[in-house]
């Protein structure tokens, strides 16, 4: 029988473009997730910073992870839940679109939103006097962009299980919880002991520590440990996401 499937590469690209268009035409979603990290960073790490460019560089590493969590958690968690509830996912699933293309498009669009949020933070850090060697910049950008993946998978796992309203509430709770526990706004050493221990369960803490080590700040614990923990959390999130996709009747 002749192969009736459309060429996958084209389908992936077109689906991603449509997804990006959707986001850019919904500024009420895109703007807060892009502007909030820049606002926080500009206020706390640049304007109110009395400790000099070193502190601004430290914050740059962790706020960059914060900038990646928003688009990933909201785009996937809330976005997928809404599209599952209104039946769009069902329509995609009875169409010849490969399941991977839907997920890939969402990931590309979350990555693009994160890139915009990151660009603003990077610009602010330069204004705040942060100077890094090019190879450190390159590594930092890579870590920040890869941060999207674990949060996106977690958001996806939630979106396939929880209703739209519940998913938005859950995304908000995780957004704040991961930021505080992960030490993305301020080092976790100022938190109570039990919260410092809980930090080890969050992907944000490990990502923050990895980001810090790329700019020469020694991490709490060892860097390979953080990488291992992150790989484990990401794999668990991927498994939950895949199960949610398979199980969901819609």
């Amino acid at each position, binding site marked *: 029988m002749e192969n009736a*499937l459309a060429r996958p590469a084209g389908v992936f690209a077109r689906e991603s473009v449509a997804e990006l268009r959707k986001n850019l035409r919904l500024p009420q979603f895109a703007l807060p997730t892009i502007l909030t990290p820049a606002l926080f960073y500009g206020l706390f790490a640049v304007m109110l910073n009395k400790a000099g460019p070193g502190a601004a560089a430290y914050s740059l590493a962790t706020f960059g992870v914060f900038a990646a969590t928003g688009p990933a958690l909201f785009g996937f968690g809330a976005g997928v839940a809404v599209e599952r509830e209104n039946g769009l996912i*069902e329509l995609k699933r*009875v169409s010849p679109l490969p399941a991977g293309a839907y997920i890939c498009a969402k990931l590309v669009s979350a990555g693009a939103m994160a890139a915009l949020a990151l660009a603003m933070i990077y610009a602010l850090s330069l204004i705040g006097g942060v100077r890094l060697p090019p190879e450190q910049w390159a590594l930092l950008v890579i870590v920040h962009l890869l941060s999207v993946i674990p949060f996106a998978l977690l958001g996806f796992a939630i979106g396939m299980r929880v209703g739209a309203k519940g998913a938005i509430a859950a995304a908000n709770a995780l957004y704040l919880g991961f930021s505080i526990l992960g030490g993305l706004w301020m080092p976790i050493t100022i938190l109570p002991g039990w919260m410092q221990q809980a930090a080890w369960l969050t992907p944000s803490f490990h990502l923050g520590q990895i980001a810090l080590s790329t700019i020469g700040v020694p991490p709490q614990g060892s860097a390979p440990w953080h990488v291992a923990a992150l790989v484990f959390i990401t794999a668990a999130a991927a498994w939950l996401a895949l199960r949610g996709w398979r199980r969901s009747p819609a």
Partner: protein
Amino acid sequence: MDRNGMAVVARLRGVTKTLGGRPVLNAISLEVRAGEVTALLGPNGAGKTTTVGVLTGRFAPDAGEAELFGLDPGRPAARARIGVVLQSAGLPDVLTVRELVSLHSGYYRRPREIHETMALAGLEGLEKRRAGALSGGQLRRLHYALAICGQPDLLVLDEPTTGLDHEARRRLWSSVRAEADAGTAVLLTTHYLEEADALADRIIVIDDGRIVADATPSGIKADVAGSTIRCRTMLPDPALAALPGVRSVRRSGGAATLLVADGAVAARALLGADPSVSDLTISAASLEDALGDLSATIRKAA
């Protein structure tokens, strides 16, 4: 190929499905053939949408077999040849009609030209309108456009005309008819008898998860050809059922509805048995009466 020389594109054999602890489909067997419009007709909750879900690979049957182009319906190669209008599906409000039709056309190997899809679905002039700004009827037409844009070999329409006005419904019917005449297999679900009667080559009546009848529209009418008598009478149901040629008796309020083989014969007997009969009318049995009768017969037998 089946006995009529039409290729069978989709088939269910003894499919049983339980959803959320409730049995929804009970040993459903059916075939959908190329070039034919098959209507799945039944009341809400009868199992029409679940049947469509099994055929399009959304649900795996608990028992029995589902086949789409000879493949498991869950396989992407099978889905590549179908177009589906779901009963309710949201579309991204911020994308335009043209963007959505073009996006879905890209899912298929040999899509129609965009303008041809627009014309067939009656969407000319709305290309630049965003989906969120469409009226309910326009949105249904957009869903139809997304289903036909890939020139599918099987077109599945779940309640396609709900919410359409008379004029739009007629236009959609003629478009569906044209698809079937060009060789496409069409499966549509409906609870409008008029729609099944006007459009379908074959009507499959489903009630309570079972297939009650599977025949041509005229075949179904012939099965239960006769008259309907409506009246107010003091006679109890068993006495009415004992009148000559009475097939079924139903009551609603104080009125009785009898489905009978010969209206005049039954009416004479009725007047003889109960001289106080009032509001008596005799009419040809409608498809609706015929189907209600079939369902009732099956329920009694079960």
